[in-house]
């Protein structure tokens, strides 16, 4: 009891010395990334300048790659580049681990009206692809349940339609989106027609998330080769 009293005294004593200063800053990652969570909160969020995607629970290698892309000018969004500018790879990796480990509930799926033909088109692309046009099934890389593949391929469920359309659009018109050199995903996006992009984006946004990212061994060697720059070779960095 005396010990507890003493402890109490110490705590209030410290609080007094510091006045109204935040007495103790938590030594946690959550505190360190407050600069990020102002935009990347638990849910997707439409900000005044852009759509802020969810990053919680995405594969760590994928998040790490994207953070380096923003920092090193291969993906373009200046407000984030400024924050990341003076961070080491080591710290970026730790931040990626942190966000990847967060288990937050996914948002409810959107309810977008789709014609039966559209649904057929989307499902064919997603589960079968068009080998003759060099388009593998999306699920071959993004996992059976489309929740991504560790460590560097993101899931496709739980993303809103507008974001999916914007990312595929970025690759298709080959802006500075994610790199000077094209990678597997940009090659695939370039093959897609506008109708296909719209159908896939709607269909994906309508699914509810369930399951976890698959492990790396579901990928075929051919697909690994195809994406090696992104998923093997140090994230496509120079």
């Amino acid at each position: 009891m005396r010990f507890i009293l003493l402890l109490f005294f110490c705590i209030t004593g410290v609080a007094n010395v510091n006045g109204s200063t935040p007495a103790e800053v938590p030594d946690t990652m959550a505190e360190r990334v407050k600069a990020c969570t102002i935009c990347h909160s638990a849910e997707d969020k439409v900000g005044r300048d852009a759509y802020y995607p969810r990053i919680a629970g995405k594969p760590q290698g994928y998040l790490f790659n994207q953070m380096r892309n923003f920092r090193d000018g291969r993906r373009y969004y200046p407000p984030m580049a400024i924050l990341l500018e003076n961070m080491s790879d080591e710290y970026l990796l730790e931040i990626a681990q942190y966000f990847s480990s967060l288990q937050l509930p996914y948002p409810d799926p959107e309810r977008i009206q789709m014609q039966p033909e559209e649904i057929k088109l989307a499902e064919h692309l997603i589960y079968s692809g068009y080998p003759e046009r060099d388009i593998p099934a999306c699920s071959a890389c993004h996992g059976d349940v489309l929740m991504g593949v560790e460590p560097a391929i993101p899931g496709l469920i739980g993303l809103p339609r507008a974001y999916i359309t914007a990312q595929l659009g970025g690759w298709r018109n080959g802006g500075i989106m994610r790199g000077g050199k094209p990678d597997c995903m940009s090659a695939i996006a370039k093959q897609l027609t506008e109708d296909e992009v719209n159908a896939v984006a709607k269909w994906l946004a309508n699914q509810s998330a369930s399951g976890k990212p698959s492990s790396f061994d579901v990928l075929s060697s051919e697909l690994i080769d195809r994406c090696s720059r992104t998923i093997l070779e140090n994230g496509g960095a120079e």
Partner: protein
Amino acid sequence: MKRLAIIPRVSWWKNITLLWMCVILQAMAAEITASEPEYSDEVSYGAYLTRIGNCMGCHTAKGGVPFTGGRRLSTSFGVFITPNLTPDKETGIGRWTQQDFWQALHQGKSRDGRLLYPAFPYTEYTKVTRQDTDAIFAYLQSLAPVPQSNPPHDIFFPYNSQSLLAVWRALYFKEGIYEPDQSKNQTWNRGAYLVQGLGHCNACHTTRNILGASQDEALMGGQIMGMNWYAPSLSSHLEAGSGDWEIDEIVALLTTGVTKRAMASGPMATVVRQSLQYLSQEDALAMATYLKSLTENETGKLPGVQFSVMSGSLRKHLDLGGQLYQEYCQACHGADGKGAPGIYPALAGNRGVIMDSPLNTIRSVLNGGYPPTTADNPRPYGMPPFQQILRNEEVALVVSYIRNAWGNRASLVRALDVDRSKGGND
């Protein structure tokens, strides 16, 4: 449902995740060993000096191969594109001799005699000794040659003329290595040599006149060309002079960017990350000694504007800012503005906040930021950007408030000032 053939060669592929992590760790290890200053020979001494001169910072494009150039430096005279410094014979400096290199750093002339633009800070590097310049050259020549041609500069008329450059040089460029001041000790002289020469602090910390010349050598402070940041004067008690700081604290600011009274932000954070964090203990001490001496004898009024009495309407105006502060800032910087030492900077008494120019403070609020990751501060805490949350008027209110709370006194800021502070990040 047809799927592509999946060949699960489990044992091998499972290791991929591990392999991937190894690649990263190796890359990091390489970075760490490259940074260890150890001068067993001329090349490693040259590597150290090259860090302190931060040649890599300018001569590397974002995400590019180190020293291959291609970085774009936007100025009001046009865009400069840095050249390749690797020893490639066609596109780099592979054919250069020691003498050619000396001529570039000391006299600001290229190998073929072309006058170089002072966007390359040879105006400061001229103070570097021949021996040190040779060591830098030896290090650069030891790098792997990388062929990379970079696009030409894109400089506006009439600044693209060599004869105008010749006139400019006659007016503003003084060639010559650093002359030690015999009345000062060795540590002080070493600090002065580094600050005025290789450290090229003057390249930013000085007022630039219309022709881009530093107006004097006194580290006067000035808005950096094309960057939209204000580099405060290091020789003024009213700005970033450190006459009343302990030497240890100045050393900490230089090598980590973080102290209880101030944090390096924006371009200064980048300088700390790329260059100053690698200073040897002796050199950091020397720089700090010299910087402290610049304002040691300065006594004067406290920085800022003095309001004799605060009018009622002024107080009301500041109260609005105070409400915003409570909502958005207080959790980190504290109700008393004292922050948390080494984590969140104090705003009360922060010389950067009460400085005459509100530019940096406005930019901090708009952009947020993290101090650099360094050996001593590998996991810094950050400040969120508020550009996408607060309107210009609100930013003006909250900045006016922190410039006048807790005993701070400085001029008020208008929404127009906030608008003018945007842009210029590239």
